[in-house]
């Protein structure tokens, strides 16, 4: 058993979300403040109770100092701005609480569709500031790059090659998320899709098509974390952070990765399993990241739900035809909120929020009866692989 002194010592006590859309006209700050005030009120707290701020470093999202000024949060003793993908910020916030750097911390993310995400985003003059100063990365350069998003199309090609696989499991992941999003009022994409829709979807970076890629959205999510002791006195059922980790290997450049069976996800799974008292047999709800369908395939195989290359068979064997979604062993739904593919591309904040709501028993028509333990595996293969086990107190 690996060292994990923070086990069950920090709780998520508040969540807030604006919901996600592709037609929003509000600023990133407005979205962040909406989500933050909801999360703090959800916890039964006020601005005066918060003395830590972790602002997820999404492009255009407000800094901790702007959040403090806008929310009237004073006497802040800890603040930071980690890179996107949710667990960098959750881990930072919980470590700050556990170390005593602050007592109650707000974690906030707001995301805006960047100008290249859609025609409406491109036509919005207020989004031009998001790419000022060359934030376009490889987009302004030559096409011969597998940096960032293109990396997943590249490694999807390798997956299909090595395992003589078809795109069918990719499509099933997309259908699963859309089916689940139908019951989530926060989700941007709620019209049902079929496997035929998947095969007919526009190819973008072959072998990945439009429905393999998460949907760019505007929206905000926020969380409040505090000590497990304090959480017991607050108004919501506390959700304890049982174990977390992030994972990185040395050869993490997108085109230099050793292979599909050795990357960041493997570090996460080994570390998380060593830190946790709970594992797959204990899990009631599962939230694998799905910025691209191949990432979910990777998590299913690398977490040990099935063997490497076994996802197609596993998904087929655990598919619920009646509802059109994945139900592991007939009881564990996957991405009950619709994931990044259908709720919206939040880089994992949606996965954590939905896990909290399920563990509180507040998911309404989506509620998994008696859900006590959630496994959340945000991030991809290269430099943002992450894992968390959350449990009801």
């Amino acid at each position, binding site marked *: 058993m690996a060292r994990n002194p923070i086990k069950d010592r920090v709780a998520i006590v508040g969540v807030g979300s604006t919901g996600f859309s592709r037609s929003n006209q509000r600023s990133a700050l407005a979205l962040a403040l909406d989500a933050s005030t909801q999360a703090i009120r959800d916890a039964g707290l006020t601005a005066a109770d918060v003395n830590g701020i972790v602002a997820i470093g999404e492009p255009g999202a407000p800094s901790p100092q702007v959040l403090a000024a806008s929310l009237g949060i004073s006497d802040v003793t800890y603040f930071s701005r980690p890179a996107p993908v949710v667990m960098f910020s959750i881990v930072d916030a919980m470590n700050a609480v556990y170390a005593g750097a602050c007592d109650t911390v707000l974690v906030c993310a707001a995301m805006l569709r960047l100008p290249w995400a859609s025609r409406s985003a491109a036509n919005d003059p207020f989004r031009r500031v998001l790419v000022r100063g060359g934030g376009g990365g490889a987009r302004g350069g*030559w096409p011969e790059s*597998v940096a960032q998003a293109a990396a997943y199309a*590249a490694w999807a090609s390798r997956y299909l*090659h090595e395992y003589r696989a078809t795109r069918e499991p990719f499509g099933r992941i997309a259908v699963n998320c859309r089916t689940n999003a139908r019951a989530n009022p926060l989700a941007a994409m709620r019209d049902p899709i079929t496997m035929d829709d998947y095969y007919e979807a526009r190819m973008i970076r072959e072998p990945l098509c439009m429905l393999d890629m998460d949907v760019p959205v505007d929206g905000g999510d926020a969380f409040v974390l505090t000590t497990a002791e304090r959480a017991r006195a607050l108004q919501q059922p506390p959700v304890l952070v049982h174990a977390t980790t992030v994972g990185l290997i040395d050869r993490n450049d997108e085109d230099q990765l050793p292979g599909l069976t050795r990357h960041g996800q493997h570090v996460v799974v080994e570390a998380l399993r060593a830190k946790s008292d709970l594992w797959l047999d204990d899990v009631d709800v599962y939230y694998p990241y799905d910025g691209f369908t191949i990432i979910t395939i990777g998590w299913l195989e690398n977490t040990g739900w099935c063997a490497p290359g076994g996802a197609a068979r596993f998904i087929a064997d655990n598919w619920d035809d009646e509802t059109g979604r994945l139900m592991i062993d007939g009881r564990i739904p996957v991405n009950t909120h619709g994931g990044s593919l259908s709720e919206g591309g939040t880089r994992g904040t949606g996965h954590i929020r939905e896990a909290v709501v399920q563990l509180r028993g507040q998911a309404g028509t989506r509620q998994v009866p008696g859900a006590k333990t959630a496994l959340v595996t945000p991030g991809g293969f290269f430099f943002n692989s992450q894992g968390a086990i959350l449990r009801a107190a």
Partner: protein
Amino acid sequence: MSDADLVERFAAVPVDQDTKDFYRGWLDHELRIDRCADCGRWQHPPRPMCPACWSWNVVPTPVSGRGTVHLLIRLHQGPPLEGVDYAASPHPVAVVELDEQPGLRITSTVVNCDPREIEIGMPVELTWIDRDGVPFPAFRPAGA
């Protein structure tokens, strides 16, 4: 060529102290990959120290140009590029594993063949194409 001229000519790529010799090689039609002169380990992209032995004796060294397609994307859309019509013919982006060392790869494209015939596992060799007025290292089917 001065450092300023080099940066100017390669406006589309990040030229700095660590990558300048890699891009200077392109002007001479030579693909130079960083190799540790002490332990022999190759690394790419260019970085100033050997990650295996921490030697600073890293030397941009010409490679044979022979390799194998390891990853392959066909872009149905992408940044505007002269001579590329993504809709008419998806543009191949290939990650080629070089013969010099397992896992040593470079990302480029494959030319001199029907794009539909490119596949993972295909042996390829280095060739040079023009890209925005500068030589660009591409690959073609081996022996073509």
